[in-house]
């Protein structure tokens, strides 16, 4: 079965669109598989995503149930990772926290990547006044430090997960727009784009069907590498009380509420910190590996 797929996908003379596309994907996967750090990153992320999805099945307690008689307990058979300052099970809260944290990250990426790509490609392709206006707007957003702008934005709205996502999204898109624009500028004058202009296709069709796909690989790499900083920004907002609100088990908020116990019951704030570290590191490994596979300049 697998070897049949392998032969079909790797055929030098594919006989359908689908086969050619799968061949490309499979070759990329083979390249990716050869990178051990990338595989470690992918595995860690897959585990956390599974944990988030299956949280109700994997959890040993209810994330909100308090056992005030059993506060700040050390890890034990009853509470695998101990309990927090309200006697809630930390393992369960990490599971549910993965939903909040990863959910925020995914929401940010879904908002930001297409926006940055579209703005960058449009600015780069049309040039002139369109380019100037779009890029000056980008510069304005780029000029603010990310956390400060996000803080101001959340403070103006009401603190919460949605505002945090919106605030991070607002500060995260400019680098993608700049990158997409730079890539667009390198291909805009090429003969193959000229050839597409000679089909009579509209500028929009050329931008979205032919230029944007060329910018996506490096965008994916950049987004993956940025994931860790998005997680940290989300956690920082949570830590500062501007992100997810209690009792929501967001990792940053968990560290914030447990920070007073760092000397006596150090594992309480440490466990969400380790979760953040692991996921951030995993995304960085993944990003590095993807760069080797996807970035055409590397080949």
């Amino acid at each position, binding site marked *: 079965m697998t070897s049949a797929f392998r032969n079909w996908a790797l055929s*030098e003379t594919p*006989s359908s669109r689908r086969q050619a596309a799968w061949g490309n994907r499979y070759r990329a996967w083979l390249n990716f598989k050869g990178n051990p750090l990338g595989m470690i990153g992918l595995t860690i992320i897959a585990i956390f995503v599974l944990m988030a999805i299956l949280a109700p099945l994997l959890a040993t307690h209810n994330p909100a149930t308090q056992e005030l008689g059993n506060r700040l307990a050390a890890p034990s058979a009853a509470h695998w990772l101990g309990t927090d300052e309200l006697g809630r099970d930390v393992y369960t809260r990490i599971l549910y926290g993965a939903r909040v944290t990863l959910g925020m990250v995914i929401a940010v990426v879904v908002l930001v990547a297409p926006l940055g790509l579209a703005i960058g490609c449009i600015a780069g392709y049309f040039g002139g006044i369109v380019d100037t206006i779009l890029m000056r707007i980008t510069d304005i957003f780029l000029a603010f430090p990310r956390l400060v702008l996000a803080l101001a934005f959340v403070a103006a709205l009401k603190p919460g997960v949605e505002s945090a996502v919106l605030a991070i999204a607002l500060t995260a898109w400019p680098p993608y727009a700049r990158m997409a624009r730079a890539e667009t500028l390198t291909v805009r004058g090429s*003969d*193959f784009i*000229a*050839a597409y202009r000679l*089909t*009579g296709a509209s500028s929009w069709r050329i931008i979205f069907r032919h230029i944007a796909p*060329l910018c996506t690989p490096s965008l994916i790499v950049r987004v993956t590498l940025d994931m860790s900083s998005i997680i940290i920004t989300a956690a920082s907002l949570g830590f500062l009380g501007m992100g997810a609100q209690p009792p929501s088990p967001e990792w940053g908020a968990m560290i914030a509420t447990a920070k007073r116990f760092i000397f006596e019951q150090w594992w309480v704030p440490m466990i969400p910190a380790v979760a953040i570290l692991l996921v951030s590191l995993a995304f960085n490994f993944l990003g590095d590996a993807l760069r080797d596979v996807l970035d055409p300049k590397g080949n």
Partner: protein
Amino acid sequence: MTIEIDNLRISFGDKEVVKGVSFKVAQGASFGIVGESGSGKSTVLRAMAGLNNHWSGRIAFSGEDAPLKRPPAFFRKVQMVFQDPYGSLHPRQTIDRILSELPLVHGMNDIDARIARVLSAVALPQSARFRFPHQLSGGQRQRVAIARALIAEPQVLLLDEPTSALDVSVQAEILNLLADLRVEQNLTYVMVSHNLSVISHLCSHVGVMIDGHMVEQVTAEDLRLGNVQHAHTRELRTLSVELEEPA
């Protein structure tokens, strides 16, 4: 389709690179433009194709003036083949995708049959259809580029140094293919090249450009025999002939 170019001027910013070029090409004929880099020969061709909007003068196909911004239907009649087969095909699309773009834009039917037809017209195997450009040789890529132009079923083909990036053995195959296609599909050619022997092989009439001016128009026969007037034409001819003669 006849082509008339009248007092064509093209500028990049303040710099005029084409300074009043005029020539005519009869239906089914093939006209060559020869010149060195910076002479403006490729700029003329790109303006004819509609890739340059900074021109003045007259460009007319079949007596009909071409507007600055060409309507989509224009590209069914006039197509172009570029110099570098490595840079003129989208690096991440299959040949199939590259060829199907024009039929999709124009809402043509039977795209599969059309692709099969142009692939065989340029003598590429059908198995090349779902491959990527980097899996093909330089000569095969240039055939794909020609096929992409042919799928529009054009009447005019503009050729910008179509063989200068290729080895001589592949150049011979492509030149033969272009010669055959012109007869079979009743095409009119305008070809730009720096190589006199290539141009005189494919074109019956040749215009010589230097510094934005077309200084002379001769028949390929006169070029061969040396019946030329302008000093630059003579210089180019001498260089070409010297190389052909044994050392």
